[in-house]
């Protein structure tokens, strides 16, 4: 397994690298570097999260003929920083009859599981913390435990709305996880590998997978988008915190930082889903038609981020357009439509590959 220490072709990185190795014994140095990476990623995480929140608010405003935050700093770019500061300095409340341990645990659970998820993405060829050989499956595995945080948090709050919200959340996440997994599997058939960097390499020669895979790839993408939106508990699948039904849903009792964790995790989850989509369907950091392949200095990260933002805006578009589903409709959608279609699509794809119909 490769462990790339962010080989950004900058001297400063290697200088730091050398310097750390020079002043410490090897083990300590490697630990330090890992911690450094972790810290950098966490900072990245926070920034991505905060700016996604801002993006969401801006995009929502544009859908709704408004301007959105624009007073705190130029174009409102410090708006979410202010929110973060506020949330940090906000009191943490709880009620008397909760299960203290679980109540406090839940937000960490949610946020740490998303944090781990973000660490495996290849933002560019060099910019990847871990290139784990089961990349996709790892993401799938990690995202499947995030829901436990919601379930536990909702239960431990000793609040009826929170419990109903948690129940719904559990039901919804586990249902749609299958579709996420199966639609990704459909694409894995094409690549023959789970490693994210290799998945991208495959697309360098053969074109983006969504084109390589004909109709089944498009179906898989659609299913993935639907299921991914549901996985992140966003509208039209936001039954977990359906405001008009459950008030604030599972995080009714949380305030301040703990609430912020849930809030951030939702956005990071969205980022993760969008990133998966980009890697698996749209060629990751590869430029479209290789237009910037010749330019060595061009930051490939940019392509990755542009594509991710496009997908995220698509998800926001869903959110600001559609009404919310009802619980039983949600389940019908998954178990009656998505899952069978997905299984059929998987076999369809298998047949296509077997017959060598791919481009």
């Amino acid at each position, binding site marked *: 397994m490769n462990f790339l220490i962010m080989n950004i072709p900058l001297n400063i990185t290697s200088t730091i690298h050398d310097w750390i190795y020079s002043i410490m014994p090897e083990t300590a140095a490697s630990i330090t570097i890992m911690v450094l990476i972790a810290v950098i990623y966490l900072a990245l995480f926070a920034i991505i999260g905060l700016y996604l929140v801002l993006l969401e608010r801006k995009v929502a405003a544009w859908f709704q003929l408004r301007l959105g935050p624009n007073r705190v700093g130029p174009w409102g770019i410090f708006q979410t920083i202010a929110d973060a500061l506020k949330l940090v300095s906000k009191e943490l409340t709880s009620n008397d009859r909760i299960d203290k341990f679980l109540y406090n645990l839940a937000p960490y659970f949610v946020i740490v599981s998303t944090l781990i998820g973000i660490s495996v993405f290849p933002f560019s060829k060099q910019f990847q913390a871990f290139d784990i050989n089961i990349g996709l499956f790892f993401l*799938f595995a990690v995202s499947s435990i995030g829901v436990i945080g919601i379930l536990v948090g909702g239960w431990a709050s000793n609040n009826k709305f929170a419990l109903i919200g948690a129940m719904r959340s559990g039901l919804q996440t586990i249902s749609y996880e299958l579709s996420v997994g199966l639609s990704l599997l459909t694409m894995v058939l094409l690549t023959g590998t789970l490693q994210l960097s290799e998945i991208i390499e495959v697309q360098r020669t053969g074109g983006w997978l969504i084109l390589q895979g004909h109709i089944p790839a498009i179906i898989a993408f659609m299913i993935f988008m639907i299921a991914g939106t549901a996985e992140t508990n966003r509208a039209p699948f936001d039954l977990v915190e359906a405001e008009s039904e459950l008030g604030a849903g599972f995080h009714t009792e949380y305030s301040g930082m703990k609430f912020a964790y849930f809030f951030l995790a939702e956005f990071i989850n969205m980022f993760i889903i969008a990133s998966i989509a980009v890697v698996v369907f749209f060629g990751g950091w590869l430029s479209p038609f290789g237009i910037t392949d010749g330019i060595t200095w061009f930051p490939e990260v940019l392509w990755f981020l542009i594509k991710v933002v496009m997908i995220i805006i698509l998800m926001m578009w869903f959110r600001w357009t559609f009404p919310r589903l009802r619980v039983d409709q949600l389940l019908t959608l998954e178990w009656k439509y998505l899952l069978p279609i997905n299984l059929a699509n*998987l076999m369809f794809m*298998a047949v296509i590959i077997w017959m060598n119909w791919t481009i």
Partner: protein
Amino acid sequence: MGSEAIIVFFLAAVVLVVGANFLSNLISHKSDNPQKREPYECGVPTIGPTWIQFNVGYYLFAILFLIFDVEVAFLIPWAVVFKEVGTVALVEIIVFIFILGLGLLYAYKKRALRWE
């Protein structure tokens, strides 16, 4: 060289997240009163037992999910080697999914996938 980087990353994440929360606890302004310590429910006290028993629908879905989850876990190695193995894999998976599909059909017929 193992994947310990992930574990270290995990530990670092936990420490940082908990640390941030601790910091927040430190600088936040606090107040206390008896009402604050009660569950929030639209501004009125909760009525009746907070015991909630849900109907069977919920966990049946969890069971079905578990089963399909195992299936996905088995499909992953299959998917990875599908191109190499070819025909055997195709036949194999058709049988596999067919059998599971029967199960799904059964569940559908028995209205286990209908939530009432």
